[in-house]
């Protein structure tokens, strides 16, 4: 048995985000680290308040989504709102090259050092 020939058909499905524009929220990668710049205020919608509490220490977008129990796409929109209000800052991933290109060898070297430092046992 062998993997059959490549299917070169372009994908015909496409995604749409209902309701709101994606611009702005696109800047939040799954691993963008979010940091609160202010405390929740009285009367704030609970999800916003919860995000501000979670992000007192840097927290990735995907972790925020998991902790809130909300889909990532929704969380991106909430984060964009908070960002526009200056209540959070975002630390975006730096791989040294534009997305989808090979990362900077220096960063990879750093990753290797960190991985090799992991003990085989906890």
């Amino acid at each position, binding site marked *: *048995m*062998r*993997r059959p020939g*490549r*299917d070169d058909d372009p*994908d*015909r*499905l*496409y*995604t*749409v*985000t*209902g309701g709101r524009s994606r611009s702005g929220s696109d800047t939040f*990668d*799954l*691993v*963008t*680290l979010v940091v609160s710049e202010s405390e929740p205020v009285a009367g704030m919608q609970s999800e916003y308040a919860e995000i501000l509490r*979670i992000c007192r*220490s*840097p*927290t*990735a977008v*995907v*972790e925020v*989504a*998991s*902790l*809130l*129990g*909300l*889909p*990532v*796409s*929704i969380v991106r929109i909430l984060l964009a709102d908070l960002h526009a209000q200056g209540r959070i800052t975002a*630390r975006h*991933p*730096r*791989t040294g090259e534009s*997305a*989808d290109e*090979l*990362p*900077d*060898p220096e*960063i*990879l070297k*750093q*990753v*290797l*050092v*960190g*991985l*090799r*430092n*992991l*003990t*085989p*046992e*906890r």
Partner: protein
Amino acid sequence: MDSATSHRNGETDARPPLGSKAANGLKIVVVGGFGVGKTTMVKSVSDIRPLNTEETMTRAGEGIDDPSQVEEKTTTTIAFDFGRISLDATTVLYLFGAPGQERFWFLWDSLFRGTLGAVVLVDTRRLADSWYAIDRLEQRGTPFIVARNDFGGPRHSETQVREALDLSEGVPVVECDARSRGSSRDVLVALVDHLYTLASSAAEARRSST
């Protein structure tokens, strides 16, 4: 839901916070067929108990021949799990366990954008389960290695695995036991080593072409 993962419900104490200097989130994706050991591998190396989250996508109807018909939209929700490893004060590596089946491809573009690379986890008893994932990775140009997770099935030589998967020559194939932290770490090291080789020769080629 997989019992090896958790979400919500005050599990925050099981989640050591990142240091205040954490600034660079990197990602690696572990992809493979059902039950191949993705969650197990993420769990073995993660600093936190793997978390689970969802992505929803609304897909517009395709192949609409009858313009009078209202375009149909369906919303699909898919779950994926992830863990993280703090590599140093500023760098955090996120590991995603992603289903490799065809109907989940739409998640991949979101997961794979900006990813360092991928581990294709295979069970040698079910190699065909990873064909689709490998096709997608090749199409995207995402570098990957293949890790064979030993479930005690019949022994295949590396050559047999390479042939069945139609792997390009440079793609490393390693063996692993996803339940072992040391073994899972070694898989990640093998991937990043491979990426380093690719990235340095690309950088070299750029330098000599100018």
